[in-house]
């Protein structure tokens, strides 16, 4: 949508580029994999950037020795408001087609738009979360184009004065893709309305239109062209999803189209100052698809360069074909689309007061990046950190568990292993489970102070997850308190040994593996309550004792 604007801003990068290239030349001794950040000086990362690993593909790694990809992303976020942006029609997904309509969103003569305060609220929230500067005065413009999903013949958007601009976002690249921390620039965030939905029937010579979505509020986030690989782009996209979910401005659901990413990508031989021809990729409905589409496109464009056919890379929109795992031409653009923007005369300017902005800033939740750094500072490994901070409800649950004084590492382990597996099997989310954070903390404490064994802990965990209840209640009800009295354990061991003379003989003649058999018998006798360490220690003594 903002291709026009991106174009106009590009000349800035060319000027920055000169200095960046100079720096690159002076660092020729370092690996050519180190790509010097040359765009958007404000976003320059302090850490050296090594090219991320890409699905272990050698072919791609080879290409990236000679070429550099330049990737920018436009993200459309559908806002979870109760009404459309400029009228009071309900904003609900999945209603009967063409039922959420009124003269305003249908573009009937004389109807006037009135902006919902919630859209401004969400715009400010997202702008602040992306470290942007806010325009205390912004305005709406009309973007004109003819299409059947656009009843008015224009989209109300923001052109030259967006609500927020000049920010950045920090992401962590997962370890399996090389790890590391990146900062990507955010060019702008602006408010606009969505168009209707077009359905193209396979048969018949017509298309169908549903205008329930026409006028639904969107925030469009335009990134700087700072990404260099499919992994970086996918990680940027995931972070946008996390941020909008943390903020509660959108459900960020890609399948429903609540979060849509369009990727702009070009490649250029390393050392070349000029950008290559830019191709846009659409139809990316998962981050993994985004990553694969970009890697495919890098390979395709590099091949054309290598064959001396760089002129065949043309400005166009390509679609990601999930079945064929490749991008295909959707439409070639003949020159830049002319949207004939002009200020929307039916809407006043959007004025924010500093107090309003400050109050929203004060109400922002802890954001994913801050959470990750806090978890890291608590001593958790980066894999634990990324898992816990990925889902806002898991993070909140974890925070409540450790808020009750639970051991941090144990809490992380329970959530990442047994609880995560349970949720996956039962297809539940963390908010569906009956186990309260308070009780998980109790469970961890009960195991730590050896009231119950880890094994018993696991058993009651699943019961607590499914049925609820309290740890103390269950321990009492089922008489689960761990046996840590050596005398009592010894009694049981002696009984087992005396009942198994054959196994004892075999053990003493060298089949020491039979220790496991004895341990199992004792554990069975204790109904799983014997302290395993103590049990094994005493058992060994007794087995190895010469009569």
């Amino acid at each position, binding site marked *: 949508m903002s291709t026009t*604007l991106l174009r*106009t*801003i590009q*000349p800035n990068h060319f000027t920055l580029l000169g200095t960046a290239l100079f720096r690159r030349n002076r660092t020729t001794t370092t690996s050519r994999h180190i790509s010097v950040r040359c765009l958007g000086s404000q976003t320059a990362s302090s850490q050296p950037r090594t090219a991320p690993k890409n699905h272990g593909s050698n072919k791609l790694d080879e290409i990236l020795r000679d070429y550099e990809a330049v990737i920018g992303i436009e993200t459309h976020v559908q806002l979870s*408001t*109760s*009404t459309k942006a400029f*009228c*009071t*029609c*309900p*904003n609900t997904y999945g209603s*009967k*087609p*063409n*039922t*959420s*309509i*009124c*003269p305003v969103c*249908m573009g*009937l003569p004389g109807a006037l738009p*009135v*902006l*919902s*305060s*919630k859209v*401004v609220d969400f715009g400010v929230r997202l702008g602040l979360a992306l470290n942007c500067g806010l*325009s205390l*005065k*912004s*305005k709406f413009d009309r973007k*004109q*184009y*003819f299409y*059947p999903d656009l009843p008015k*013949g*224009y989209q109300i958007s923001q052109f*030259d*004065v967006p609500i927020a601009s000049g920010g950045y976002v920090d992401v962590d690249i997962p370890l399996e893709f090389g790890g590391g921390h990146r900062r990507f620039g955010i060019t702008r965030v602006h408010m606009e309305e969505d168009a209707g939905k*077009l359905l*193209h029937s396979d048969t*018949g*010579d*017509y*298309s*169908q*239109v*549903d*205008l329930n979505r026409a006028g639904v509020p969107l925030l469009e986030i335009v990134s700087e062209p700072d990404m260099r690989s499919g992994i970086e782009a996918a990680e940027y996209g995931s972070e946008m999803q996390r941020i909008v979910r943390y903020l509660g401005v959108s459900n960020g659901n890609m399948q429903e189209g609540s979060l849509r990413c369009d990727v702009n990508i070009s490649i250029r031989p390393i050392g070349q100052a000029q950008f290559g021809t830019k191709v846009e990729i659409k139809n990316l409905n998962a981050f993994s698809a985004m990553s694969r589409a970009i890697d495919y496109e890098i390979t395709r464009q590099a091949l054309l360069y290598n064959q001396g056919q760089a002129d065949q890379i043309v400005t166009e929109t390509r679609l990601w074909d999930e079945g064929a795992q490749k991008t295909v031409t*959707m*439409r070639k653009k003949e020159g830049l*689309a*002319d949207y*004939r923007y*002009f*200020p929307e005369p039916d*809407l*006043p*300017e959007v004025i924010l007061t500093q107090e309003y902005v400050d109050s929203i800033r004060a109400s922002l939740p802890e954001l994913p990046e801050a959470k990750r750094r806090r978890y890291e500072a608590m001593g958790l490994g980066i894999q634990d950190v990324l898992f816990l901070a990925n889902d806002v409800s898991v993070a909140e649950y974890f925070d409540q568990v450790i808020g009750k004084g639970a051991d941090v590492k144990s809490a992380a382990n329970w959530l990442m292993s047994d609880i995560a597996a349970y949720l996956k099997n039962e297809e539940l989310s963390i908010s569906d489970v009956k186990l309260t954070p308070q009780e998980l903390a109790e469970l961890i404490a009960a195991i730590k102070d050896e009231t119950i064994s880890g094994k018993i802990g696991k058993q009651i965990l699943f019961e607590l997850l499914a049925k609820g209840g309290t740890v103390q209640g269950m321990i009492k009800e089922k008489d689960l308190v761990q046996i840590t009295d050596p005398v009592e354990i010894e009694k049981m061991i002696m009984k087992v040994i005396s009942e198994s003379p054959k196994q004892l003989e075999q053990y003493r003649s060298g089949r020491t593996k039979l220790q496991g058999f004895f341990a199992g018998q004792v554990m069975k006798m204790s109904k799983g309550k014997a302290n395993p360490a103590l049990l094994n220690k005493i058992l060994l003594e007794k087995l190895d004792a010469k009569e």
Partner: protein
Amino acid sequence: MATRALLAVLSASPPRMIQTKVSTFSSSSSLSFQRHSRRIARCFSSDTNPSVLQPPDVSRLAETARISLTPSEIEECGAKIRQVIHWFGQLQQVDVSCVEPAIRAEMEGGNLREDAPETFENRDSIRASIPSFDEVYLKVPKVLNKE
């Protein structure tokens, strides 16, 4: 509608005039570009004499507006559109250098609305007025991959 038509006219001028285009349709907005965002202002900076407006390319204009015109209609429209553009050329000559640019007209008090849904009662008559309705959908000519 008049504004829209006019914008179509202006944008249909030959490509060389892109810079003039913006400063033509609203001098105040071009000024506000400079005030609000210097990097954007750069591409709108206008050094052409605004009163010298190029005649419109009526064929391209018609295409932009998705209407077909016969050669004689093109000739007929051309003259009318030139008149309108000439009038804007006159407006363009007014000296506004001492006027503080405004993004939008100012309005008193709150102009936002609560986020409270309210279903429009008379939806049936909106749907009834759609010429081609196919059960629950609007029916339109197939538009796949066309811009």
